[in-house]
């Protein structure tokens, strides 16, 4: 099943979709996202793949409320994110590839600040902070300022910040870039647990192995358009080779698009 056939990919459900993008378009000097239709079911782990400049980050930035789309609509759990942005932001979190932290704050202070922004009950926020910092191996560093942290540690603090308010929809832009194997495993385990607990995750990644292992569905985007989506099996079928790896399928599909473009 691919996006060309139907925008409502995935199993039908009575619950509103975690994310529904309809005709989403963003034009800078050139078209970055081109009439993108995309649906993500609640509780799904959705990986958005694509070559550099395909429009992945622009798409996530529009969903996160950081960029106004040129046209189209964004619905998050039934909330029109363009009309009611604050309501939508209240249940989402966005983690960019470069962690956005305050160097002069320590992890606990940062989490307290994030909890304040999302108006999380202090007692619940405290418990969440303790749990997240323990799971991510940061508890010992909770009173150290972030300025002395490695990139991996900063990424983990930023991830803890994205999770402390228990978002229903979590958008991660290249969350594993630059992380060593041990930290990457911690992050992957934490994300998997969150999905099992009912959260919906959309991530972009260049590491195809991550998408292959974690994602329940994969979307491939090129030149701002969704060229294919589905489970790995569906993508293989779409590419016409049941024994291909995701890398083969990805290169096959994006290569074909490059030629067509």
């Amino acid at each position: 099943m691919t996006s060309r056939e139907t925008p409502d990919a995935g199993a039908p459900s009575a619950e509103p979709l975690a994310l529904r993008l309809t005709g989403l378009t963003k034009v800078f000097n050139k078209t970055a996202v081109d009439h993108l239709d995309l649906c993500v079911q609640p509780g799904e782990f959705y990986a958005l793949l694509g070559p550099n400049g395909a429009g992945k980050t622009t798409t996530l930035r529009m969903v996160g409320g950081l960029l106004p789309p040129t046209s189209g609509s964004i619905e998050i759990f039934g909330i029109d994110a363009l009309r009611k942005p604050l309501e939508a932001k209240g249940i989402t979190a966005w983690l960019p590839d470069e962690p956005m932290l305050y160097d002069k704050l320590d992890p606990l202070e940062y989490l307290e600040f994030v909890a304040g922004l999302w108006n999380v009950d202090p007692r619940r926020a405290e418990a969440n902070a303790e749990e997240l910092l323990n799971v991510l191996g940061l508890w010992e560093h909770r009173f150290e300022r972030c300025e002395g942290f490695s990139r991996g540690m900063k990424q983990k603090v930023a991830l803890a910040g994205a999770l402390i308010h228990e978002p229903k929809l979590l958008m991660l832009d290249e969350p594993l870039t630059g992380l060593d194997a041990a930290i990457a495993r911690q992050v992957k385990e934490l994300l998997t647990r969150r999905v099992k607990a009912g959260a919906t995750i959309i991530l972009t990644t260049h590491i195809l192995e991550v998408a292959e292992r974690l994602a329940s569905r994969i979307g491939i985007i090129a030149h701002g358009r969704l060229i294919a989506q589905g489970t790995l099996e569906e993508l293989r079928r779409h590419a016409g080779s049941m024994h291909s790896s995701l890398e083969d399928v990805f290169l096959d599909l994006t290569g074909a698009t490059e030629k067509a473009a």
Partner: protein
Amino acid sequence: MNLPAFATRPGTLTWLALHDLKLSWRRFRSVFGALPPRTVILILLFAIAAFHVLAIPVAQWFRTAQHDGPNQLHFYPAVASAVLFVMPWLVSQALTSTTRALYTRNDLDLLLASPLPPRLVLAARALAIGCESIGSVAIFLLPIANMNALLVGWQWLAIYPALVATGLICTSAGIGLTLLLFRIAGPRRTRLVSQVVATIIGAAFIFTLQALHVMPEGVRGSIVAAIENPGGNMLFDKSGWLWLPVRAVAGEPVSLLLWCSISIVIFMATALLLGERFALSAVQSGGAAAPVSARRARRQVQFRSGLGRALRLKEWRLLGRDPWLLSQIMLQVIYTLPVSIVIWRSQGPNGSMAISIAPAIVVIAAQISASLAWLTISSEDAPEFLATAPVPRGVIERRKLEAIAVPLGCFLAAPLFALAWASVELAIYTALFAIGAAASTAFLNFWHPMPGRRVAVLRRHSQSKLIAILEHLLSLLWAVAMVLAVVESWFALIPLAMVGGILWMNRPRKPVIASAPVPAAVSPAAA
């Protein structure tokens, strides 16, 4: 300008120095933003011409001082004041630049990991630091040298080599002082300590400049007399070692030769002896652990609720934990106060504080408020993160403006209390006008954000000269209004109306949107 770094043999001091000078030039060039080279050259030529015109009265004064004129007795004190004025500034610049080189590092890791000897790296970097420091005073001093040479005598061209020699000695002193501080205070504290020391040394040159004005007439006269007839006092003996730089600047050939030779020896000795220490300090500065608050580490974790509290606390923590930033802001206060003291003194024994000290406080309030507003609004570390929060941008920015009121109050409390000691009524007037001035410059920054990094707080105006002019204009108008209000003149309404007009013309015409310090992140290329 592309200096021909590849025309020299790689790995030599000249090659490395040219590389560093090229980087220095590009940093200087960046001050002019995207202006085309022709415009930059025209601006520089205009500035040089203007400084030459301004130097004509100085040259005329020196002509009367050097050729048996009425100012003859003041010739050496004047040259000595100039030397005392320049040297602390050069040392302060070298101290700041060396600390920045150690901590911001940039290409230092690459250079120190290369097979080049550390003394060569230090020598090249020191030359670049020296050139930057010398350049910062050359634009004021060399026009004086040129006009003096034209109107008084060619020997004034000695300022050129004397300035280079002084720059080399002061750079060596600055490097030595930084490395000494590094050894004493350790890698974690040196950045702050050196900034404070540089601020004090830098302020010394302002106070030196003003010292003669502030000194009572009798003291000034006795110093001039002592210089004329030292009577064995080494401090005032013009022929002694202490006066060597003064004689060099005045164009005495032997002194000039000696001063230049000493500067080369000191500079080479610094590079040779401190090269290894510089490399070691650079390595240590990279591994300086982030501080942990022992007091905080002992207490239990306790989150508290409230959006306003969270935002205010965040801003206060970020400001309070960056003493370097606070010292940069304090510089504004330090550099403003001597001027007001001079105005006060110039009015004689019954000088009115209402037209000297009080307006200075109003101006300082406006400037500090603008700096703090810029820090909280424009140099937000995570603007995109805040934009993803379920809070209206207007609410966030209002809370941020509330947050700056407290540090601003802390800065102004002491001078206002001091003023209240003399006159409660004047202190109340000053406080009211200071609040108005602070609010107006804060709103200007709020309505017209100029994204930038926090470390660039004193260079924030490079992005918008118009905002810089408006900020200064607003602070001056408030100060003028205050003086007129204190003397109970209805004319006070005129500057206040002008303030209102400026703010009205600069009100936001569209909703203020997220300020992003890294605009490239929103470009399509990031997709």
